[in-house]
C-alpha cells in the first residue's frame, strides 16, 4: 500500500504541474494525439465500411484484413515505422491510425449488416432511393455498432499511445518510461494510474453514448453479439 501512497503523492505533487512535463499537459497531449488518430482513421474507415455494408461487396477482404491486423503486435509496427520515419510523433500517428481502422471499419459495416434485410427491402419497396436508404434507415439503425467500433478503437488508441512514448516524447506513457529509466517507481505507478483512469473515464463516456444512440423503438442489445468481431482492442493495448 506504501507504493500506492507514494504514487498518489507523486500525482498530487505540485512540482508535477509545471513545465514541459506537467501532468495536465501530458494528459492533453495524450488526448489530442488519440483524437487526431481517431479522426484520421474514421475518415478512412467509416465511408469504406458504409460502402461495404451497403453493397455487401468486399466484405470477405475486410474481415480477413481486420482479423489479420489483430495478430500484428503494436510494438512491432511502432518500432518499424519509427525506424523508417525517425523518432518523433509521425511514427505513432501512422501506426495508430493503421491500428484504429479495423475496429471502426468493422463497426461501420457490421452496423449495416445487422439490420434486418426485410426492413431495408421494405424501404426500397416503398420507393426510397439508395441514398435515402443509407441516410434514413441504415445510418440510424447502424449507429450503435459504429459507436461500439469507435469505442474499441478509442481504447486501443489510448492504450497504444502509452506505448508510443517508447518511440516519441508523447503523452502519459513518458512517465512510465522515464520512471523506468530512473527507477522511480512512484512516477511509473502514478503515470500508470493516470492512464488507467483516463481509459476508464473514456470507457464510461462511451458506455453512456452507446446507450443514447440506440434508436428508440429498437430494444434488442445489438452491442453484444458482434463484440467479438469489433471488440478486438486487446491486440494493441
Amino acid at each position, binding site marked *: 500500500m506504501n*507504493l*500506492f501512497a507514494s*504514487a498518489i503523492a507523486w500525482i498530487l505533487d505540485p512540482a508535477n504541474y509545471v513545465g514541459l512535463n506537467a501532468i495536465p499537459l501530458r494528459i492533453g497531449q495524450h488526448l489530442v494525439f488519440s483524437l487526431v488518430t481517431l479522426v484520421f482513421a474514421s475518415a478512412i474507415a467509416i465511408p469504406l465500411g458504409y460502402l461495404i455494408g451497403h453493397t455487401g461487396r468486399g466484405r470477405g477482404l475486410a474481415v480477413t484484413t481486420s482479423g*489479420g491486423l*489483430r*495478430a*500484428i*503486435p*503494436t*510494438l*512491432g*509496427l*511502432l*518500432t*518499424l515505422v*519509427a*525506424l*523508417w520515419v525517425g523518432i518523433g510523433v509521425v511514427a505513432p500517428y501512422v501506426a495508430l491510425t493503421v491500428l484504429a481502422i479495423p475496429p471502426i471499419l468493422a463497426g461501420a459495416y457490421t452496423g449495416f449488416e445487422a439490420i434486418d*434485410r*426485410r426492413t431495408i*427491402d421494405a424501404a*426500397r419497396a416503398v420507393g426510397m*432511393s*439508395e441514398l435515402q436508404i443509407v441516410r434514413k434507415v441504415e445510418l440510424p439503425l447502424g449507429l450503435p455498432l459504429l459507436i461500439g467500433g469507435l469505442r474499441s478503437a478509442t*481504447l486501443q488508441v*489510448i*492504450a497504444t499511445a*502509452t*506505448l508510443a512514448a*517508447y*518511440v516519441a516524447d508523447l503523452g502519459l*506513457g513518458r512517465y*512510465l*518510461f522515464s520512471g*523506468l529509466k530512473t527507477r522511480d*517507481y512512484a512516477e*511509473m*505507478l502514478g*503515470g*500508470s*494510474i493516470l*492512464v*488507467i483512469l483516463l*481509459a*476508464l473515464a*473514456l*470507457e464510461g463516456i462511451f*458506455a453512456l453514448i452507446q446507450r443514447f444512440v440506440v434508436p428508440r423503438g429498437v430494444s434488442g442489445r445489438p452491442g*453484444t*453479439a458482434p*463484440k*467479438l468481431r469489433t471488440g*478486438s*482492442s*486487446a*491486440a*494493441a*493495448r
Partner: protein
Amino acid sequence: MTWVLANLGLIWARTLDHVVLSLPPIVICFVIAVPLGWFARRYRVSRGIILTGAGLLYAVPSLPLIFVLPAVIGTSLLSPVNVIIALTLYGIALMVRVVADGLDSVDADVRQSASAMGYSTWSRFWQVELPLSGPVLLAGMRVVAVSTVSLVTVGAVIGVQSLGSLFTDGFQRGIQAEIIAGLVATVALALLFDGALVLAGRVLMPWTRRVAPPKPSVPLEVSAA
C-alpha cells in the same frame, strides 16, 4: 535476410520464451472463465457485477497494468509473472462475457428437454450446455489466443524477454530486419495457435463440421435504382 540467417538461434530462443509467456494465460483464463461465466449467468446481480467488472478490466491498457501489478501482488517489477497475470486477466475479462453469451445461446427447449430426460443440473451443464455453446467459446478463445500472443511483446519494453525483444533491440540498434523477423514470427505463432484451436474444435465438436452454409432466408434481388 542475412541478419535472420545469422541469428536463427536467437529467434528460436525468443520464440520459446514467447510460448512460455503466452500459453499459461490462454489455458488459465479458460479454466477460470467457464465457472465465472456460468456464475455470472446464474443470478441477475452476479451478472451485472461480473460483466461490468470484466468490461472495465478489459478497458485497462496493458502496459500500465503490468506496471501496477507488482504493487498489488508484490512481485518484482521485471518478473515475467506480471506479464502472465496481466494477460490472464485480459483473457478472463473477454471470456467471461463470451461464456455467458454462449450459455445464453443454448436453446431453452434443448435445455428443458435435457432436464426432462433426467440430466441433473451439473451433468446438464457439462454434457449439454457447455458443448452446445462450444462454437461461441471457440470463437472467443481464438480472439484470446491471437491477442495474447500479440500482447506478450509489450513486456519487452520493461525487459521481459519474448519475440517483442526483437522489436526493442532492433529499434535501439537500428536493425530493420530484426523487427520484421519479430513481426513475422509473432504473427506466425498467433496463426499457429489459432490453427490449433480450430483443429481442436473440429475434433471436440464433430457435430459442427457438416453444417451447410446457411441460405439467405429472404431471397432478395434488387434492380439498380
